[in-house]
């Protein structure tokens, strides 16, 4: 397992009128392949900015980003699009599926941008991994929230990326469905995919194996989850952390 992500002195500055907003200020980060990380913090802590930069949707004002051995922070738009297509899979809070399009076609979108031709087979396989092969022909409006997020996850993994970046993936779901979704993330992580979750909910954050807490554009804590951290954060959070079932066979009915 090598170092998948190496970030040195990330800074992201915006000009808003006369002031300069420092969304990120000299952040260092190192992620090994196969990790399960959550990035947490309040609004404005910089966690969204970090996620966008990790996902190669944006470039830092200064600093280096090494992804899987390549210096990504100085790549062209063209090259970044290829990286996003091949190495990264996004999952969003609001699912962001394309309306009036079947689940199968939704999942196939990254395959088109990878210039693949036989898309239905790969698309179906991804849907099977999330347990939705029976709903492949349905459009998003015909699917429940949990099913939609599962289609989104299938879309994120269809090109077999190394990293899944999830932005509040359970934010629009009830707690039961949320648990099912987290179960899928755990399973993907077990199969070797690096999972990076961005959330402001402690209960979700604590399901990772490593928690990075952000404040004012800097990380002020970066440690592995253990009993002490759980107890510390349980006191701060709104509710007791709900641990997903121990990693085992897929829960029935998901």
């Amino acid at each position: 397992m090598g170092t998948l992500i190496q970030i040195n002195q990330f800074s992201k500055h915006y000009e808003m009128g006369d002031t300069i907003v420092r969304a990120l200020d000299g952040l260092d980060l190192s992620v090994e392949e196969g990790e399960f990380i959550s990035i947490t913090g309040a609004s404005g802590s910089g966690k969204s900015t970090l996620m966008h930069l990790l996902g190669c949707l944006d470039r830092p004002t200064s600093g280096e980003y090494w992804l899987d051995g390549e210096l990504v922070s100085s790549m062209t738009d063209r090259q970044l699009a290829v990286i996003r297509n091949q190495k990264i899979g996004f999952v969003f809070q609001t699912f962001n599926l394309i309306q009036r399009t079947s689940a199968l076609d939704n999942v196939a979108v990254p395959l088109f941008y990878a210039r693949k031709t036989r898309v239905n087979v790969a698309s179906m396989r991804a849907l099977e991994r999330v347990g939705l092969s029976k709903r492949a022909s349905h459009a998003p409006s015909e699917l429940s929230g949990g099913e939609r997020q599962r289609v989104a996850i299938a879309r994120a993994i269809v090109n077999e990326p190394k990293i899944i970046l999830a932005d509040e993936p359970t934010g629009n779901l009830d707690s039961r469905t949320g648990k099912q979704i987290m179960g899928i993330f755990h399973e993907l992580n077990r199969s070797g995919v690096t999972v990076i979750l961005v959330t402001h909910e402690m209960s979700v954050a604590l399901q990772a194996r490593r928690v990075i807490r952000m404040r004012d554009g800097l990380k002020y804590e970066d440690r592995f989850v253990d009993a002490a951290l759980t107890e510390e954060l349980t006191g701060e959070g709104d509710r007791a952390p709900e641990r997903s079932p121990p990693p085992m066979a897929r829960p029935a009915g998901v």
Partner: protein
Amino acid sequence: MALRSLTVHPLRTILATLGVIIGVAAVVAAMAILQGMSARIETGFASMGSNKLFISPNIERRSGRMVGNFESLKLDDAAAIPKECPSVRIVMPQVGNSALVKYFSKNTTASILGTTPEYSEINSHKVGEGEFISQTDVQSGSLVAVLGWKIKRDLFGGRPALDEKIKINGSLGSRTFTVIGVMEEKGNVAFTDVDQQVIIPITTAMDKLWGLKSVNMIMAEAISPADADIEKAKEETKRLLRQRHKIRAGQQDDFQVQAQKEFVQQFATFQTIIGIVLGSIAGISLAVGGIGIMNIMLVAVTERTREIGVRMAMGAQRGDVLWQFLVEASIVSFLGGALGVLVGWGLATTIENLTRVFETITTAWAIGMALAMATSVGIVSGIYPAWKASRLDPVEALRYE
């Protein structure tokens, strides 16, 4: 895949493509009508015969009125031309007007043609029954008439018409004529329905029916259809008439000598002008249509900003986004064009059925060209919205509400 946003609001899409639909419909209908007109007119010209000359008084249209010497052509001119012009083979003077023709209680309106026996040969139109007017009839101004096929049918039905007496109303009063013949059925010759005619000797028409001192027109035939012979015939005729009418050098002719070729050229010019006018109208409609399409595409880009951001997150290149929207714009305008073709074809067919003048001809070429124009409009008007879409910042797009 690409048309969802547009099928959500079908009415909006149709309104936006209205310009394209109208432009294409106009082009298709106009071309169908023009093609039909041309075909009909070409047939008319062909039936006219290519070695004919038309000699008429020189009348111009000035500020809306006809001015000139209406009475410049005399009957004697017609007699002199074949004698003095070797390139002219045969000559036929004519006068004509419409008049009421009565047989007992039946009456009908016919076009009365006063002419000479040369008519049959020049117009390839012979009697079906009885005889045609003869040289003697013309010399003595006899009150004889040859009926056109439709006139015979309207006045006599199935009964024999020969030797019957009919009355024709002229400005000098009503005269009684004896029917000596009935023409064979012929149809349309050079834009005239010859079956609706009644033919009488020209002298009778001039002296006894209308009191005329001059003829309306003299038709002549050159000795051959060759351009050289037609030119020579024109030259000789002009020279003779100038001499007879005592026109001095430098003065304008008080007559016109036209060959069929000139009519064809005049019509070709007319066609070109009509084509330009219709083309301009169509062009303007299409430009308006293009603006409509650009508009809905811009709206579509805005409405789908989130989606564009997501596609970019999935690995779409800027070129992919641009291409996607360009294709959508082309498809929309192509469909608008297809609808326009249907509307235009319907319009042309309706006009054909309403006016019953001629048939419209819709060619595959016209349809193909109209569709190509529509699609190009889509491509051109789609470029700006597609470019805008491709320039979106992924992070901003993903945040868009």
